[in-house]
């Protein structure tokens, strides 16, 4: 049995999942902090 398709699938799931949660967390943080900063500047 050729193991490489299994290895590639496992790595792809790990990399895509990690980058997805990293990207989503980063975007949420930037958006929330920008809104908070904008409100602070308005005061």
């Amino acid at each position, binding site marked *: 049995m050729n193991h490489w398709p*299994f290895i590639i699938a496992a790595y792809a799931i790990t990399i895509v999942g990690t980058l997805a949660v990293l990207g989503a967390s980063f975007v*949420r943080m930037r958006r929330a902090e920008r809104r*908070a900063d904008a409100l602070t500047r308005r005061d």
Partner: protein
Amino acid sequence: MFRGWPSRPLRTARGPLIPRRAVHIFANPARFLSIARPLTPWLGWPGLLLIATGLVSGLFLTPPDYLQGESVRIMYAHVPAAWLGMAGWSGIAVASLMQLIWRHPLAAVAARAIAVPGALFAAICLLTGSIWGRPTWGTWWEWDGRLTSMLVLFFLYIAYIALSSAGAERGSNDRVSAIFGVVGAANIPIIHYSVEWWRTLHQGQSIGLAGSKIDGSILWPLPLTTLGFTLLFAAIVLMRMRAMLAEAKVEARLKRMASE
């Protein structure tokens, strides 16, 4: 959001069990943010670099295992995911305990911030383990002690996310999800000892404090990916905590503006 700061530390007859200052020094959101903002990139970038180095090394620089063949390379992704799935829940349990004892709102924020990345790494552990199992054991899934207890951990994460999200929407001091976080930690030793209690399909412990049963020529990229994923996990948790604190600040400010 930041109401309910601790009024009293735990006390014994001789005085505070733990000095109040030592316990609460990082519980102030402003002080936390002053540390978290510079720390986030210092955790994230080295984490990404270590992960890339470890995964590429594991793919191209290590030899195949004499028994498992090439599929042993899945270990470099699977083991850190398993570690983070379990460490994540341990973090939730500690933060929940701090929330219950000292009523730190920041502890509740930390527990909620850990839940999603923790669930993700538990899922990655299950999926990569299943993919590893097919060429190694000849099956995608078996109701083995380790696999089943890890699946239970994933379901605990999903339940915790649902509970804590509902609590956050109500805006209440969410004791139910904190209690759930502490009680759910009972599954962690079950996962750890499952390979000793029920010797079915999953291999026994290969790496421990006393050493490793894995040959050094195969093992060396594993500490790189484990440390790298751990640093990145910490950066993700900090990002999510910063987002939650900023969202709470915006919400409080908007409520105040509406009432003026």
